[in-house]
């Protein structure tokens, strides 16, 4: 009888946890119903697996428990699926995400399924472990554990943002002959007067300065820079058409300080929005460098 409540409850909580983690984000791609269905159904399967694990063990059904390991392989496919989808979309993007960003997104999607398994498992443990309590209380405890674990796991999973590792301030766009500059960082050579004029009247620039040597090394990764540019363009929009490469934003690095300079012509100009958007760009897992954790790195600092 216990199992009849424990398994559906665990499955439900796990699926809800997956739903909670599947918030639509302007940066992430399941922004349409099909994407939702794919991830929710996989989340449901994951949650079910997590929920039956403990009852299976209690029933001495070890075969069922080993199937959990088998199922994990299934969710590796999720990462592959995400990666393929985003890579296929890449040529259609005005500003590309870059492979580092895609890899990061794909990993997050895989990890979220494991989190759904974990939440469901915790819920079923919570329910089974409180067998001595009144039925209503057991229910409450299990649901409470589910909510708490979903919330805290999601919180733990949330990586750092650019705003945590760098200071972002507005930069002044100027021209030195044909060279477009943001403060002192040279971005590119722009020939046409018309394009220069457009940068001077509508352009916005930011300077992203790393807070420490770790941040400096992380920001130096081209994948990370591309992710920043992609997010900024996605949030603010770009005032350009296909075939106008001079309006595509380019990140350039000051080799001395490690600061990143970036100029763009947003379709909805607001420097505050641009800074806020840059702050919220995730630090890519693949770009994180920590020279300060190495002895040699400390000696340099």
């Amino acid at each position, binding site marked *: 009888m216990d199992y009849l409540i424990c398994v559906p409850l665990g499955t439900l909580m796990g699926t809800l946890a997956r739903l909670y983690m599947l918030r639509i984000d302007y940066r992430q791609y399941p922004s349409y119903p099909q994407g939702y269905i794919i991830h929710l159904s996989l989340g449901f399967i994951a949650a079910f697996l997590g929920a039956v694990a403990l009852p299976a063990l209690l029933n001495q059904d070890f075969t069922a428990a080993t199937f959990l390991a088998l199922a994990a392989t299934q969710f590796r496919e999720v990462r592959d699926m995400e990666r393929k989808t985003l890579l296929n979309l890449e040529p259609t993007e005005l500003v590309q995400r870059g492979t580092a960003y895609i890899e990061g997104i794909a990993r997050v999607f895989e990890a979220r399924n494991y989190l759904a398994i974990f939440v469901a498992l915790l819920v079923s443990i919570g329910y089974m472990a409180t067998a001595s309590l009144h039925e209503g209380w057991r229910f409450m405890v299990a649901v409470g554990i589910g909510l708490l674990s979903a919330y805290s796991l999601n919180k733990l999973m949330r990586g750092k943002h650019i705003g945590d590792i760098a200071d972002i301030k507005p930069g002044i766009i100027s021209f030195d002959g044909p060279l477009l500059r943001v403060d002192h960082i040279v971005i590119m*050579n*722009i*020939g*046409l007067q018309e394009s220069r004029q457009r940068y001077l009247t509508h352009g916005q620039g930011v300077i992203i300065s790393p807070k420490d040597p770790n941040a400096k090394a992380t920001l130096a990764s081209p994948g990370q820079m591309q992710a920043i540019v992609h997010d900024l363009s996605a949030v603010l929009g770009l005032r350009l058409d296909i*075939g106008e*490469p001079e309006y595509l934003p380019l990140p350039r690095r000051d080799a001395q300080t490690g600061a990143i300079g970036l100029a763009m012509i947003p379709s909805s100009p607001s420097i505050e929005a641009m800074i806020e958007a840059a702050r919220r760009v995730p630090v890519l897992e693949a770009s994180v460098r920590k020279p300060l954790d190495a002895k040699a790195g400390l000696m340099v600092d």
Partner: protein
Amino acid sequence: MSGNVRVTKQIIAIITLHPERVGGSVPIFHARSAASLEEMARYISRVTGGMVHELEEGTYFIVLH
């Protein structure tokens, strides 16, 4: 990506007011005035999808990136 081969980082055209100062195997367009220089550069860049860079006063070159 499609199977198209795209030559990048190569000068695909030069537009200049000083034809005596440029040469080579790329198409060279002689402009009559600063205004026509600007206009020709823009037209070629829009058609080819290349980007206009300034080499010196009166000489633009177009590169695919």
